């Protein structure tokens, strides 16, 4: 009785069960990665009809036009599709006369600008009567918010350079443009920006911008760093709707 052996359970079919599970997973899942370019569409803003938008200097705008034959016009000259990269690089980095106006953000500059804006708001609020004037006040207030944020960025980066608020890449496509060409332009713009942001983040925070973005959800201090990098290298893209011409 005592030396009776416990019978062994046959585990041979265990493998079959595991294989079945494995095959089930292979069939129902996919290894495809969702890869793509990330963008933000502009919000529909409706400024009051009597509001006159400020005049934007020519040098602050990089004009890229794609026609329905996928031909590219950059700054009124015919170019190859692949030339966009170098123009965008110049737009962000070059100090030439025909490139966007740049400004150094120093402690004195921040104090000076905030003072001026506060005075402007005071004055504008006193005289505001029309919708357009109130709209202008709200714009001044948003500028103030932005300069307040520059203060924090300055603590992280030291004195840094910003582009003119009105600097913009104006990318005009046409309803007949192929998606391939359109994608290529956006891809070049975002690649340049990504590379430059990575370099800048590497310089200041010893890690790439991509890495910062990955840490965003776990580390709250990273958000200020991301914002600081974005202050210096903002994505300034304007895509006029081809149907509104």
């Amino acid at each position, binding site marked *: 009785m005592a030396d009776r052996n416990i019978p062994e359970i046959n*585990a*041979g079919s*265990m*493998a079959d*069960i*595991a*294989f079945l*599970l*494995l095959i089930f*997973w*292979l069939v*129902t*899942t*996919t*290894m495809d*990665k*969702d*890869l*793509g*370019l*990330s*963008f*933000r*569409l*502009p*919000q*529909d803003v409706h400024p009051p009809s009597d509001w006159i938008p400020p005049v934007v200097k020519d040098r602050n705008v990089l004009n890229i036009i794609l026609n*329905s034959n996928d031909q590219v016009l950059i700054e009124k000259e015919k170019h190859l599709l692949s030339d966009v990269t170098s123009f965008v690089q110049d737009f962000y980095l070059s100090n030439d006369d025909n490139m966007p106006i740049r400004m150094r953000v120093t402690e004195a500059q921040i104090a000076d600008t905030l003072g001026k804006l506060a005075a402007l708001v005071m004055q504008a609020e006193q005289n505001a009567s029309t919708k357009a004037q109130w709209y202008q006040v709200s714009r001044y207030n948003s500028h103030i918010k932005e300069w307040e944020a520059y203060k924090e960025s300055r603590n992280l980066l030291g004195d840094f350079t910003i582009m003119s608020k009105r600097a913009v890449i104006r990318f005009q*496509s*046409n*309803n*007949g*443009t*192929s*998606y*391939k060409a*359109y*994608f*290529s332009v*956006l*891809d070049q713009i*975002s*690649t340049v920006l*990504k*590379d430059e942001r990575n370099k800048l983040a590497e310089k200041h925070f010893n890690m790439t911008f991509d890495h910062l973005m990955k840490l965003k959800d776990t580390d709250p201090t990273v958000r200020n760093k991301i914002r600081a990098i974005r202050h210096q290298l903002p994505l300034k893209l304007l895509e006029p*709707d*081809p*149907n509104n011409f």
Partner: protein
Amino acid sequence: MKLIKRKALKKAVGISTASLPDIVFILLFFFMAVAVMKTSDPLVDYEVPSSEELYRFEDQSLLANIRVGKDFKTNRTIIQLGDAIRNIEDIPAFLQYAQPEVNRTGSNKIIAFLEIDKEIQMGLVNRIKQQLVSMEVYEIALAGTEE
């Protein structure tokens, strides 16, 4: 002679397969970790443009898939929203349907994941964008493949 006879009588030693389930389970767990659930099968024929620098969207539950391409048979341009072929006017309803799914994960930012064929003209893409803006979906992703 005696020696050879004795050897032939011996039964062949069986290889133990006891560890086979373990190996298969390891494989299974590997796939469970690496793979993600299929959201929908493509019902349109499309080929996204290629690029070198692409962002990887980790959280599939945030994505609302919109595919634009050709019908497999008729070569007509068609739009797939989620699991079905629909019209461009159905995009708002589709996004509304996709929204609660997203809210459960804690974030309410839905990303329109646009998988658009290379040869599609921008007119259609612009109309899709207008629909997205009308539903206040501003985050978009333009799908691409790595070269």
